Every structure is written in structure tokens, then in C-alpha cells.
């Protein structure tokens, strides 16, 4: 009996370390350089679409997070009364400095992903991979894997790998699943560079 209790206790302690303590130690948490409210921009007040700022340029490349020039188009001087906006104008727009955003969805360097292929031709919604970012009111802390240097959003928030939503995790296995479901056959270099 005593053996069984010890075994159970060992199992519980091991699980706690593996599932709780290890993830805490594995990821370092960093705050974004400033806050951003997507909802203000995309909601009734702003009425903007994702593609108004996150554009695919004329060469077909996705530009990702917009540069400060895009922000300055509307915010050359503060149009609201929040502290964050005042800070953006003072610290970044007026001195024409880029905001050093930490990118949640940055893939490893050897991955090639074409937004144009998936969005323009494949007619996928941004939310399918990025989740309901457009209606978020603040930016969550950025978590970086200490070993690989990748964002936690690549693996997904769940350490076990179980995901309840399509936009949790951005690993190669997800790319492959979607491609095979659609009967596509590709070589490695179709998505690797």
C-alpha cells in the first residue's frame, strides 16, 4: 500500500513539474513596447478591415505589421485622449522611429508562407490562423521559447498540443494536415526556403 502511495505521489509531483513548472521555465515573458487596441480600429468607431493596415504589396509580399508611417497617416497628432496614443506620437511618430513590436506569429527563417496564396487564392479568413485578433482590446504579453527563440504561439498555448480552436498553434503539422485534406501533394521546398 505504501508503495502505491509513493508511486502515486511521485506521479503527481512529476506531472506538476512537467506540465506546470517546466512551461513556466521554458518561456520568458516580455511585454510589447506599447499597447494597441485592435477593436477601436476595426469596430464601429474605426470601421477598418485587417487588410487596411496588414497589406499584401504589389510584388505579392505580405508586409506584416505596418510601419510607423501607416500609423502617422491618422495619428500625426493625437486624435484621442489615451496615454498610450500620446506616447506613440511622442516616442515614435514625431521622431519617425519604428515601434519594435514582438511578432507573435513569426515563423522560423526556413519557412516560406505566402499570404497571397492563402488569402487571395485560397480565400482563407485571417482569423483561421490568427484567431480573433481583430477584436482584441489589448496586446497579450509575448512569450518566447528560451531554447528555440520562437514565439509560444507557434507551438500553441497548450503544452500538451491539444487545441480546441483552429488558430491555436502554427506548426508544420497543421500546414500539412490542411494541405493533405485538400489533396495537395507538395515537395519540401514548396514551403521551405
Amino acid at each position, binding site marked *: 500500500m505504501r508503495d502505491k502511495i509513493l508511486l502515486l505521489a511521485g506521479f503527481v509531483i512529476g506531472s506538476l513539474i512537467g506540465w506546470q513548472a517546466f512551461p513556466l521555465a521554458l518561456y520568458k515573458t516580455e511585454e510589447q513596447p506599447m499597447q494597441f487596441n485592435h477593436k477601436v480600429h476595426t469596430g464601429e468607431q474605426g470601421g477598418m478591415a485587417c487588410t487596411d493596415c496588414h497589406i*499584401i504589396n*504589389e*510584388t*505579392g*509580399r505580405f508586409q506584416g505589421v505596418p510601419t510607423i508611417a501607416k500609423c502617422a497617416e491618422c495619428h500625426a497628432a493625437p486624435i484621442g485622449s489615451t496615454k498610450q496614443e500620446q506616447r506613440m506620437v511622442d516616442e515614435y511618430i514625431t521622431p519617425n522611429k519604428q515601434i519594435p513590436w514582438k511578432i507573435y506569429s513569426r515563423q522560423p*527563417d*526556413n519557412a*516560406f508562407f*505566402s499570404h*497571397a*496564396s492563402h488569402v*487571395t*487564392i485560397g480565400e482563407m479568413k485571417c482569423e483561421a490562423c490568427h484567431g480573433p485578433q481583430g477584436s482584441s482590446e489589448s496586446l497579450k504579453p509575448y512569450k518566447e521559447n528560451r531554447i528555440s527563440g520562437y514565439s509560444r504561439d507557434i507551438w500553441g498555448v497548450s503544452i500538451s498540443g491539444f487545441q480546441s480552436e483552429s488558430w491555436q498553434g502554427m506548426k508544420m503539422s497543421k500546414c500539412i*494536415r490542411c494541405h*493533405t*485534406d485538400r*489533396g*495537395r*501533394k*507538395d*515537395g*519540401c*521546398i*514548396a514551403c*521551405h*526556403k
Partner: protein
Amino acid sequence: MAHHGRTTSESIIMETMNEKKHKYGMVIDLDKCNGCGACTVACAVENNVPPAVEKMNSRNGITWLRVSNVNQNESFTENDTVFVPMFCQQCEKETPCLTVCPQNAVDIDPNTGIVGQIPQRCLGCRYCMTACPYHARYFNYWDPQWSDGMKQQLNPDVSPRMRGVVEKCNFCHGRLHAAKEKAASMGNREIDPKEYVPACVESCPNSAITFGDLNDQTSVVAQLSKQGNAFRFLSRLGTEPKVYYHSTREWVRAMAEQKGPHSLRDSQFSAEAIHG
């Protein structure tokens, strides 16, 4: 998900649908090549090949595309010489590097026919280098290093390789990605052939290299590859390379089947190899 229930006939249809749409290849006119080496430089710059370190030599350096000088070793007035740009010949059948790779790091892209090499999968055993009859594969003996200034000119479409892996020509696949993205942003699934031209082809001042889709019978490259004087190196091995050469000189065509074109690495054939 849904695909688990796929029937055999459906799978067969999908296989057929996925028959190679494109088969990219090249024809190099050796009579036009004057050995200037512009292709070698353009290739290295395009594909983020790091500059040589101090200890590098012609055997352990990295040159995806190497121009070799082959001459007949005759006396001065009799002698004839040819420059041969040699790189991955993109073998279509029994691809030697693919067959031997224990890591599945080499594959043939089913849509383009390009032989791909994935450094992240490579364990560095170099079996593929031994297997390659063209010695077109190179091993990273050192960490790639660029000076700060040179880092600014790295090509973002090509991921640099790390120490301990093999690399080779992939027909400037980054340029195909770029062409595909551009086409996709305009709603096209097919690229404009003019948008996808490898760096060596673009840089050749004599237009000695023609690139295109061998499956497209109307393309210049498909027609050139069927010319009487077109040939492939070591065609007797049956690997069916997708890189063709062309020369009106008989001794040049004969050289392509001689034993040991590996001596291309040492920049010239011996007279013995050429004549008998």
C-alpha cells in the same frame, strides 16, 4: 478529418491530378560559354553562399555552380578548350542523392521536378555527395560567416545553411516562391514564366543558358533540349538529368560520357580520359 474516408479510386484520381505539371530544366550552350564566371558569382549572391574562410580550398569550399575548363591538351595550334558550368543536374529518375539519403532530406518536388535539399533534416553523413555522379553537392565544413556590411545584402528569400549540412543548387527556388506570390496576389495560380528565371541564367552575358519548362512543348528550352547536338552528362547512368548541354563540337559531346567527369572538380580532364 475528412480524408480518412477517402476511397482508393479517389486517391488514384488525386495522384493523376498531381502528375508533374511542370518540369523545369535548362539547356546550356557550351559553344557560347566563355568561362567568365558571372553565373558562379550570381549564384552565390542569390543563394546566400557565404564567402570562403581562410582554410577553404577547391575541395571543401561551397560553389553550387562551378565552371570548369576542359581542354584537349594538344599542342598550341591544335588545342581546343571548353568551359563547362556544372551544378546539380536535377536527375529525374533513380535520383542518386535521394535514394541514398537516410534522412529523407532530399526529395523531388511533385509539381516542379526540382530536387530539393532540406538542411534542417540533413545529418551531415555526406552519403549523397558520394552518390552524386556530378559532384554537385557541397558540405558546410564551417559556420557561415558574413561581415556586418555583407549581412545587409543577404537574400531574404533564401535561408542560410548551418555548419554540418549539405547544400546544392535548387534552380533558385526562392525566385519561384517570389513569382508564385506575385501571381497569387493577382489571383493567378500559374506563374508568368518570365517571372521565374534563375540567377545564373539572368547573369550570363552571352545568353548561353536557357531555362524553362520542359513539359511545355512550345517553350524554347523544350525545343532546344531536343536538338541534335543537345546532350546530357553521363546519360548512360539513366538518371535523366533535367540539365542539358549543347555543343556542335564532337569531342565535347563525347567528353560527357567519359569516365570520371568528377575530374571536372580538378578543373580539367586528362588527355587520356578524353581520348581513350
